[in-house]
C-alpha cells in the first residue's frame, strides 16, 4: 500500500496516458471510435495485415532495425574500447564523439542526404579521386530499396549512444586484466573478444534492445529517407492514417498495435534467451 | 545521561539480528560493543538513536533524550554532507534547531577551534583527510550538546597508526565533555584503549558485558575468548605430556585454555616441545611448538630459537570458560 502511494506520481500518468493510449489504440484498431462505421467484424483490420504488402513492410522494418542496431553496437563497442585506451589527457577531447547525440533524427537524416546522394559530398569525392565520371555512376546508396540510407542514418546517430554506455561500463573494467592478458601474450583482437566484450556484454544487450526497437518503430528518419516500396511499418501506418480515406483508420491502428505487440514480445524473448545463454555459460 | 538497554530483540527479513540484548551505560561512561562485522551492531545503534524500532525490549534513558539533549549517531564513513562546507556541516544540527545566526556562528567556530579545524571551515568534505572527516563528524555531533553519543565503527576507514591516536582522541573528548558514549567496533585494541566497559556481541547476542580489563582476562565463554585473540586449548593429552597432574580438571562441559603470551618456553634438550615454525611478528616472535600430537602457539620476546630446537614449556595462566551452548 505504501509502495502504491509512493509510486503513484508515476503510476497514475503511466496508467492513464500510456496504458490508456494503448487501450485506445487497440479499440480503434477493432473499429471503435472510428469516424466511419467499421465493416466486416472486429478483426477485419487485422486480416488486412496478412496481405503481402504489409508483410513485406514488416520484414523490411525488421531488417533495417536489425542491421542498424547490430552495426551500431559492434562499431560502438570497438570505438568505446579505443576511447577508453586513450591517455587521460585526450579523454576530454574524445567527448567530441557525442556530437551526433545532440542532433535530432531529422537532422541526421538530412546529413545523410547531403553526403550520400548521387550528387552528394561522397560523389564529388569519388569524382575527384577518379572512381566515377558522372553523378549517375555513383552507386545508389539512397532510395535503392535496400534501406541503406536509413541504416546509415541510424548508425551515425546511434553509435555514439553505444559508446556512451559502453564507456561508462568500461570505467569499471580493471585495466590490470588487460595487462595480464598482454603478459600472457594475447593479441589485440583476442583481448577485445575475450576480456573486453564479456565485460561489456550486459550493457551491449540492453543497448541492442533499445536501438533495435527504436529503429523498428521510429518515424522521423524513414519519413525523410524512406523508400517507396517496401516502406517502413511506421510510414505505412502514418500514410494509411493521414493520407488515405477514413475507412483505413482501423487498419492503420492495427499496424501500430502489431508493432507494439512485436516490441513487447521481442523484449520478453530476448531477455529470456540472454538469461538462458548466461546460465549455460555459468555451467560451463 | 544514563542508558539502560533491556532485552532488546530485532529481526530483519526473518533473521534475528539482535537477540535479547541488555546492558547499561552510566552517565559519562564510554561503552564499546565489539563483535565481528555484520552481527547487528549498527542496528543496535540505530535503535538507540531512535532511527529504527526494536521488535521487543526497552531502552530506558535518564533523562529522556530531547532536542536540547539528543542522542546523536556518528555514522560509519562519517556521512558528511558532500554539498556542504565543514562550517555548514557542523552548523547543520544548529540550523535544524533554528538558533540565531550569531549563536550558530559562535558555537560552530568554538567547536571547530577545539577540534583544530578552524582553517578548514570553508573546505568541502572531499578535500579533507580521513582523520579530519572523522573530527568534523564528531564536531557536528558535539555542537548540538548531545546527551548520548553513538559511534558506529569509528576506526573503520583509518590508517593503522591513526586508529590508536583516534581512540585516545575520542576518549579525551568524551571525558572533557562528559558525554555518555556508546561505540560499536570490531577494532579490539582501540576499544580496550578507550572504553570503560566492553560488551562482546556474537551472533546477535551480547555474550559478555563488563569492565574492559575483566572482559579480556575473564572471558565469559570460550567463543568470546577466541574472538578476543588466539587461544591454546589445553587438552587432556597435553596435560599428560606436560605433566600437569595438579592442574585444575575442567568441568564436563567447560574448556581449559591459555593465551599465547601466557606460555613461556625455555631451551632444554630434554624438553617435550619441538619448535616447528618461527614467525617474526614485529615487536614479538610467534613460535609454533609441537607437543606430541598437540601444537601450542607461543608469543615470546626472545628470538633465539630455530625450528627443531627442543624446549621446555611452562603455562603461566589458565583460563576456564563454558562453551557456548549453541
Amino acid at each position: 500500500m505504501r509502495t502504491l502511494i509512493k509510486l503513484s506520481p508515476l503510476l497514475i500518468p503511466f496508467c492513464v496516458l500510456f496504458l490508456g493510449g494503448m487501450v485506445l489504440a487497440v479499440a480503434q484498431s477493432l473499429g471503435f471510435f472510428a469516424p466511419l462505421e467499421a465493416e466486416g467484424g472486429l478483426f477485419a483490420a487485422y486480416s488486412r495485415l496478412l496481405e503481402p504488402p504489409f508483410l513485406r513492410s514488416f520484414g523490411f522494418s525488421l531488417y533495417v532495425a536489425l542491421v542498424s542496431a547490430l552495426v551500431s553496437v559492434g562499431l560502438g563497442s570497438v570505438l568505446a574500447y579505443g576511447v577508453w585506451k586513450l591517455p587521460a589527457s585526450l579523454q576530454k577531447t574524445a567527448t567530441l564523439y557525442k556530437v551526433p547525440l545532440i542532433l535530432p533524427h531529422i537532422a541526421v537524416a538530412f546529413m545523410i542526404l547531403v553526403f550520400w546522394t548521387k550528387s552528394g559530398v561522397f560523389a564529388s569525392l569519388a569524382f575527384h579521386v577518379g572512381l566515377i565520371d558522372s553523378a549517375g555512376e555513383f552507386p545508389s546508396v539512397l532510395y535503392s530499396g535496400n534501406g541503406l540510407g536509413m541504416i546509415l542514418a541510424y548508425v551515425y546517430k546511434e553509435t555514439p549512444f553505444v559508446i556512451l554506455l559502453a564507456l561508462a561500463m568500461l570505467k569499471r573494467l580493471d585495466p590490470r586484466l588487460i595487462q595480464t592478458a598482454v603478459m600472457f601474450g594475447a593479441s589485440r583482437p583476442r583481448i577485445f573478444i575475450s576480456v573486453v566484450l564479456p565485460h561489456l556484454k550486459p550493457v551491449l544487450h540492453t543497448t541492442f534492445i533499445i536501438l533495435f526497437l527504436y529503429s523498428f518503430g521510429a518515424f522521423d528518419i524513414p519519413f525523410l529517407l524512406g523508400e517507396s516500396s517496401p516502406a517502413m511499418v511506421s510510414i505505412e501506418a502514418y500514410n494509411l492514417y493521414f493520407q488515405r480515406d477514413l475507412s483505413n483508420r482501423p487498419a492503420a491502428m492495427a499496424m501500430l498495435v502489431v508493432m507494439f505487440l512485436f516490441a513487447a514480445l521481442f523484449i520478453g524473448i530476448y531477455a529470456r534467451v540472454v538469461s538462458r545463454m548466461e546460465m549455460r555459460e555459468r555451467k560451463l | 545521561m544514563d542508558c539502560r538497554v533491556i532485552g532488546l530483540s530485532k529481526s530483519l527479513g526473518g533473521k534475528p539480528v539482535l537477540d535479547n540484548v541488555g546492558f547499561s551505560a552510566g552517565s559519562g561512561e564510554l561503552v564499546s560493543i565489539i563483535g565481528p562485522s555484520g552481527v547487528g551492531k549498527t542496528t543496535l545503534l540505530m535503535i538507540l538513536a531512535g532511527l529504527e524500532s526494536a521488535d521487543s525490549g526497552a531502552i530506558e534513558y535518564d533523562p529522556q533524550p530531547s532536542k536540547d539533549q539528543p542522542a546523536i549517531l556518528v555514522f560509519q564513513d562519517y556521512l558528511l554532507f558532500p554539498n556542504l562546507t565543514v562550517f555548514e556541516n557542523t552548523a547543520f544540527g544548529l540550523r535544524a534547531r533554528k538558533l540565531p545566526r550569531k549563536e550558530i556562528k559562535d558555537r560552530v567556530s568554538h567547536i571547530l577551534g577545539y577540534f583544530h579545524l578552524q582553517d578548514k571551515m570553508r573546505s568541502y568534505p572531499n578535500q579533507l583527510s580521513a582523520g579530519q572527516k572523522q573530527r568534523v563528524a564528531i564536531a557536528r555531533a558535539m555542537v548540538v550538546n548531545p546527551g548520548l553519543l553513538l559511534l558506529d565503527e569509528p576506526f573503520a576507514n583509518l590508517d593503522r597508526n591513526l586508529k590508536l591516536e583516534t581512540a585516545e582522541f575520542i576518549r579525551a573528548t568524551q571525558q572533557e565533555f562528559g558525554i555518555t558514549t556508546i561505540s560499536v567496533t570490531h577494532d579490539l585494541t582501540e576499544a580496550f584503549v578507550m572504553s570503560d566497559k566492553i560488551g562482546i556481541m556474537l551472533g546477535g547476542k551480547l555474550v559478555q558485558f563488563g569492565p574492559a580489563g575483566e572482559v579480556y582476562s575473564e572471558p565469559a565463554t570460550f567463543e568470546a575468548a577466541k574472538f578476543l585473540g588466539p587461544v591454546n586449548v589445553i587438552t587432556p593429552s597435553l596435560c599428560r605430556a606436560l605433566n600437569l597432574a595438579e592442574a585444575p580438571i575442567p568441568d564436563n562441559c567447560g574448556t581449559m585454555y591459555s593465551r599465547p603470551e601466557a606460555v613461556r618456553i625455555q631451551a632444554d634438550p630434554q624438553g617435550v616441545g619441538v619448535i616447528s615454525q618461527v614467525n617474526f611478528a614485529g615487536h614479538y616472535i610467534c613460535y609454533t611448538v609441537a607437543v606430541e600430537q598437540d601444537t601450542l602457539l607461543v608469543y615470546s620476546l626472545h628470538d633465539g630459537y630455530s625450528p627443531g630446537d627442543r624446549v621446555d614449556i611452562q603455562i603461566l595462566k589458565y583460563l576456564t570458560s563454558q562453551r557456548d551452548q549453541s
Partner: protein
Amino acid sequence: MKHWLYMALLVVLFVAPLLALVVYALAPGWRFPDLWPHAWSMRTIEQVFMGPQTSRIFSHLLWSVVYSLLTTGATLAICLVPAQHLARHEFSGKRVLEALLLAPALVPAMTFSMGVHFAFIKLGLADTLPGVVLVLTVFSYPYMLRALVAGYQAFGREYELCAANLGAGFFQRLLSVELPLILPSAIAGGSVVFLVAFSEYFLVFLIGGGAVPSYTGYLFPILNSSDRALGSMLTLVFLLVPLLLFVLTDVVVTRAYRKRGMY
C-alpha cells in the same frame, strides 16, 4: 602518435559531417562535382538572423525550449519520490514493475500517442502546450527514472537518517541534503529528457497539431525542400540550444559539484 590518429578518426566520423553543414550553409551553390565551393554567400545568415523569417524561427525555437524545459521539470516531479522508493525498498513484483515503467521509452511511441491523440481531442488537450508536454513526459520519463534510481542507489538511505538524527525536519532534509545529493543524477537524466523532447518531431507534430509551434516542425519542411543551404544553417542553429544549455549547466552546476567531488 597512435592516439592522435585515433582522435583524428573520431573527428572524421563524428565531427566532420557537421563541418560539411557549415560549408553548405555558407555556400548555397556548392554542388557536384566540386570538392570545395567556388563562391561563398551570407544569404542563409541573413535569412536566419536578419530576414523576414527571423522572428518566426526564434519564436519556434523558444517554444521548443519552453516545452522541453517543462517536460524536463514534469519528469523530475513525477519521478522523484517513486525513484527513491524503487531504489531503497524491496517489494514483490518489483522487477516486473520496473520493466513496465521503462516500457514507454522502448516500445514504439507511435502506438500509444496515436491512441492518446483521440482522448486528448476529447479532453481539449490536443493542440495545446499541456498536451504536448504530457505526451513528451510519458515518452521520456524513463530516462529520468533510470538516472534518479541510480542516483538514489549511489548514496543510500543513511544521509537522510543522519540528517533526521541531527534534528532536521522535512524541508531541511529535502533542501539541504536530498536535493543537492540527487541533483547530479537529475541533471544527467534531465539532459537526456531535454534532448529527447527538443529533437522530437512526430509526437509534437501529432499532439501539437501545428498549433504548438516547434523548431523541429519548422525545420522539417525545409530539410525536405531543395534549399539545403538553409536546412544546414537551421540545423546548426538547432545545435546551439543544447550546446548552450550544456555549457551553462556545466559552468553553473557541474563546476560547483566537481569542487565538492560529487560529479
